[in-house]
């Protein structure tokens, strides 16, 4: 029916969501696929929620309304759960399961939900769920800052967007800082491999 793929990425400020989105945009440009991207962030310089929406294909809009995401890519489990309203029964969720405590729960003013509960809810509300400790893989690749690349790798493996693995790899090589390129690619492959294992 529609040739439009709608991807929502949610993260906490500083997790590298905007770079991941930009890589996908650049890769789409390279592939000759129309793309619209939008960033949504509030006043917070640090620690706030950062959301980006990416629409591949023949759409003019750059944002995604509730219930209309095809894929939810979450960099943090609580934020994935918060964004679940963007999903419908056919949405696929890919998320990092390593929590990043918001200040409110870090000082005991609020309760961070148990990982099992988050996983159960996300599973129940999606067509397919892929959750793993992506931060761990990023650290193993060289730095926790490469978390965004791990998640891009998992996204590429699921084959949900009209851009192939090779092109994303090429874009990472060309568009991320030279001194991080090797680590970034390592992280990307680790995410890809993990998604492959979990999908079996």
């Amino acid at each position, binding site marked *: 029916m529609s040739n439009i793929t709608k991807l929502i990425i949610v993260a906490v400020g500083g997790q590298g969501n905007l770079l991941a989105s930009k890589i996908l945009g650049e890769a789409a440009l390279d592939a000759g696929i129309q793309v619209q991207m*939008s960033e949504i962030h509030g006043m917070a310089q640090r620690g706030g929620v950062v959301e980006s929406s990416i629409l591949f294909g023949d759409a003019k809009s750059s944002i995604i309304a509730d219930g209309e995401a095809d894929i939810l890519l979450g960099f943090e489990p609580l934020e994935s759960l918060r964004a679940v309203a963007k999903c419908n029964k056919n949405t696929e969720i890919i998320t990092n399961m390593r929590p990043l405590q918001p200040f409110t729960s870090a000082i005991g003013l609020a*309760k961070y939900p148990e990982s099992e509960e988050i996983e159960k809810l996300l599973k129940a509300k999606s067509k397919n769920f892929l959750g793993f400790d992506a931060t761990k893989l990023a650290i193993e690749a060289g730095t926790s800052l490469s978390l965004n690349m791990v998640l891009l790798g998992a996204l590429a493996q699921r084959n949900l967007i009209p851009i192939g693995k090779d092109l994303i790899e090429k874009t990472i090589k060309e568009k991320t800082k030279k001194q991080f390129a090797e680590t970034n690619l390592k992280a990307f492959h680790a995410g890809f491999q993990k998604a492959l294992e979990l999908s079996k």
Partner: protein
Amino acid sequence: MTVFSILKKQPKRAGKKTMHKLLQGEPESRHFLLGNEAIARGAIEAGVAFATTYPGTPSSEISANLFEISQETDLYFEYSSNEKIALELASASANSGLRTLCLMKHVGLNVAADVLMTLAYLGVKKGLVLLTADDPFMFSSQNEQDNRYYGKLAGVPVLEPSSVDEAKEMIKYAFDLSEQLNEPVIFRTTTRVNHSSGIVEFKDITLPQTKGEFVKDPMNYVSVPAVSRKRHKVLLDNLEKAATISDSCSYNFIKGKGNFGIICNGVSYAYVCDSIKDLGIEDKVKILRPGLSHPMPDALIKEFLKDTEKVLVVEEGEPVMEEYVRSVAQTQKITCEIKGKHKDLLSRLYEFNPSIVRSAIAKFFGFENKSAVPVDISDLPVLPNRPPNLCAGCAHRAVFYAAKKAGGTDTLYPSDIGCYTLGFLPPVGMGDFVLCMGASIGTACGFSKSTGKNTLAFIGDSTFFHSGINGLLNAVFNNHDITVVILDNRTTAMTGHQPNPGVDMTELGFENYNQIDIEAVVKSLGVGYVQTVKPYNIRKTQEAIEEAMKFKGVSVVIAKEKCVLYAKQLGQGKKTVFQVNHDKCKNHRNCVNDLGCPAFYIEKDKVNINPEMCTGCSVCAQICPENAISPVKIK
């Protein structure tokens, strides 16, 4: 060989080697750009020679790019100390024959409105584009006013792009239109265009004329009543000319065919197009999209309304087009139903999205809406929020803590626009009234006089230079009894560390700037009590504020400490972090409960400090009753 090589000149700043990315790339090359980058590139392609701004989200990335480009080219760019001054400079530059861009966020135009209203009378010799970045939903603003009204109020054209790529092309047209009419042109964006990214194609860069000449003509330029009476007529003539242009302008078009009509502007056009496709009603609905939306295209509207059963007007914000279209229908005796802002259709509140627009279209015209159904979220637990918070180690937190100790809860604390506005949130809880840029001092005077209470105003350095300085001048003249705490973090932090008159530009590698000393300015205004403190020293800061509050008359405390993020960027971060000694800690939790620094976390019922986040400010160590917090050197 392209025009880029002609444009290029020696970078003014040492150490910068690569050309700016918006200057690279051949004509016809395609790039994935942020809306604000596309607008900056469009201005460069238009041959802009002079650009001024006061930083404000969502416009900030345009100026950040132009500032960088100005270091490599002949473009003159400045961060003026407020929007009014920015537009004053722009008025002179455009009347000296230079293509000029003046940009600001929507509320900035309120500050510059005085200039605009009479500049429209005097007109311009060369293109002047006044960019206003509106912020429906108030992602980072104090209101969501609809600046299209300024076009109507001043009598100048308004252009509104619907997408990132259109924004780049349209801003070039804005310069042309301004020159065609000899009037400034308002270029109105919304956050959703500024902060979206899309694919744009680069075109040739027009070489700017960079040396201007002003031809004296006082009988047209000096706005005394006799001149203004003449110029007002010129303005109305120009507006009439603009109305004719509006009917033939390629940015105003009718698309599709059908008995139903939708009139939409800006980003709503994108949502309307996608909705029509999603609803499968391409053959039933036609669209009128005014890109030049003031003056509206009368002939086009008449043509559109003719033989149309029902018309829906889709515009974020105020019913500007809706009211206009209805007036056209009335003069044409057209009786078709015209709706837009209505409790069952479209709201004046916030920004739209594809779903809101699709529902309104389906409902108004009676089509079935088969949208995807969002999953049920009624069974989600209460999720902890991530409220915006002052950064770990932010000096504002230290000042607020000291001021609260000094002034207690009975003092009134008007605050201002900046990162420190967040001080009103718990646990800090400092900030009782926030209005607009610079208003903390004026409102403090009003509260002090009308209530007789102790009043202490907070204002940042950039905001003080922007318009707070006027409030202080007034406070001294009228002998008010207030205390002002200037939170001088040495930069314009909230919008991304732009320069302001107090910034040491040499630290950033720039020469040819002067630096204004806030203390000297305050003293020169005749403030009776002035003290500058280092806010990380809590005791001294508290004492200074206590003394200031005892002073009868206007007193000022300047809390001078670099923004932690800015200091880190400059390589001036502290080399220590603090840790809680759990043998000494008795869990009073003053640190957590009074400061709310995001570096704290609780583990096994004990307070800890995240060494990755701690910036070594030492404030928590100073207030711990058990002296349980101490520094550790970072290796």
